[in-house]
């Protein structure tokens, strides 16, 4: 045995050397023919491969309808394989609920002529897709390997579609992002809220408009559903996560309004003392809050300033 053999054998046994990143998908059945893959309440990390949201699929008589495709090519492929394994059916449609990278980058693993998104979502992917993709590589690393930008080829313009016995109803909303697709399966009463409702994990706000978001939450609260799948966190039967999300947005709005009216600059707003109840209620609050300040505070502070001079 030469020394080289041992080095070779050693390298072979290194998990990172021999294997690509592997997503461990554990779909759970939440209603008739309806599966959800719950993401952990985490941020994008190398360990979770960028998967921290909830994705879902419905196994209809005609084939499988997928709702959101995950953060990477590898995830999309793992999802595709898992669906095959569980249902032994063809995939007939993939819906994207918004343009955030952990929802749409996985479409690479699906035929693009089956992938549907709102026109606004497609527009957003065109505009900010490349920088979102870059950032995912930076944050998540190896799990992104081979992931490239792809465009959904179908625009969701109808308000209803029928797949087998599952009649899906669509709402084209905005607030969390400029294009939020909310889907209700009228057969099972399961509401897929995309990124709009957060359950126990602090809301993310990179493309948010608080006023619009309020309106869409009000609308969602009125929808007659049995069960809803939030953006993050557990599947739930009552509306408390919806009102919690609304309360959180209210708190942000008031805090920013008050701070701007007092002339605080961004770093002062970031380091304000925050209510303990918020930190207890929302996982990752300390991580999300400074980001939200960067996203949303500029509009509030600009509102306070008055025109005092124009060039001569």
């Amino acid at each position, binding site marked *: 045995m030469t020394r080289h053999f041992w080095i070779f054998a050693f390298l072979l046994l290194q998990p990172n050397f021999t294997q690509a990143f592997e997503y461990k998908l554990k779909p759970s059945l939440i209603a008739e023919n309806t599966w959800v893959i719950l993401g952990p309440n985490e941020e994008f990390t190398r360990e979770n491969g960028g998967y921290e949201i909830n994705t879902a699929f419905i196994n209809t008589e005609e084939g499988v309808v997928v709702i959101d495709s995950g953060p990477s090519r590898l995830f999309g492929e793992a999802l595709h394989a898992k669906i095959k394994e569980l249902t032994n059916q063809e995939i007939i449609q993939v819906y994207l609920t918004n343009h955030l990278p952990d929802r749409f980058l996985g479409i690479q693993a699906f035929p693009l002529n089956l992938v549907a998104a709102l026109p606004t979502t497609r527009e957003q992917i065109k505009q900010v897709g490349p920088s979102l993709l870059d950032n995912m590589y930076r944050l998540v690393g190896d799990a992104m390997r081979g992931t490239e930008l792809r465009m959904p080829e179908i625009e969701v313009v109808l308000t209803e579609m029928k797949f087998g016995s599952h009649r899906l109803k669509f709402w084209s909303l905005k607030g969390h992002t400029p294009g939020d697709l909310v889907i209700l399966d009228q057969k099972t009463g399961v509401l897929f809220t995309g990124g709009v409702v957060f359950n126990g994990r602090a809301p993310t706000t990179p493309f948010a408009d608080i006023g619009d978001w309020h309106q869409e939450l009000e609308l969602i609260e009125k929808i007659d559903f049995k069960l809803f799948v939030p953006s993050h966190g557990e599947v739930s039967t009552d509306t408390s996560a919806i009102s919690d999300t609304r309360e959180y947005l209210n708190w942000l709005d008031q805090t920013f309004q008050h701070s701007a009216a007092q002339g605080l*600059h*961004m770093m002062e707003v*970031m380091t304000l003392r925050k209510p303990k109840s918020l930190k207890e209620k929302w996982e990752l609050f300390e991580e999300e809050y400074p980001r939200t300040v960067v996203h949303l505070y500029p509009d509030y502070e600009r509102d306070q300033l008055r025109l*005092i*001079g124009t060039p001569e």
Partner: protein
Amino acid sequence: MRRFTLFLAILLNSLAYVSADQPPASSPLWPLIHKKFLNGEEVVFDPKVRISIPKMSEDSLNFPVNVSWEGKEKAKRMLLLADLNPIIPIVDYYPEIANPSIATHIKIQQATPIRGAIQTEDGKWHVWAEFADASGGGCTTPSLGMTAGNWADHLGEIHAAVWQKEASEVDRVRFQIQHPMDTGLANNIPKFIINEIEIYAAESNRRLGRMEVFEPVSENPLFSLDFPRQEGYRIEAKDNNGLFVQGTSYYTKGVLSQ
């Protein structure tokens, strides 16, 4: 045992080296920065230079920075630097009759120490730095306003407001100038920036502070400055294309309670 002692000696030695000579946020460029921007003058690393930044940049075009001086000596110059930006200086502020604090937003090209160098009246530089992690691309990205169409209609406009800080004779002045702040590093877009700002007391016409502004300051630069109370503030700004703008802001806002 002898080996262990040797190891210990090396370890202690290196620790001593870190505390004595290494800048607080270590950067390969520090010796160069010291020479080029501080003229190699006497420097102490001093945590009384307070640098308030987020740990992580969420938007590399809009990274908030607040530098203030908590020492007793009067600060005559406050120089903000980003070591690993392609253009290192951010702002060179002379708080003549002003409180030694400046807050603004900057572009960062990659993860970098953000450095505050404060020169006191005895000529000594007090330097501190904090590390900012960033996703990158801030300085080589064209301004967003340029693509928005009507930016030229509003070019150079100053918006401002003044607050009184409660229980102190200090005013908070915030102002924003509409300007693309193009660094000259994005393809086919020449450097186009606000490069000079002066602030005067509106009544006495006395200058309270002036600053040289550099490319890394964010598009539509927004500044927060603090002054001993005045009747009003006149702000003058120039850009590198000869544009001149001025405006006066009086106390307009409620009381700042923090």
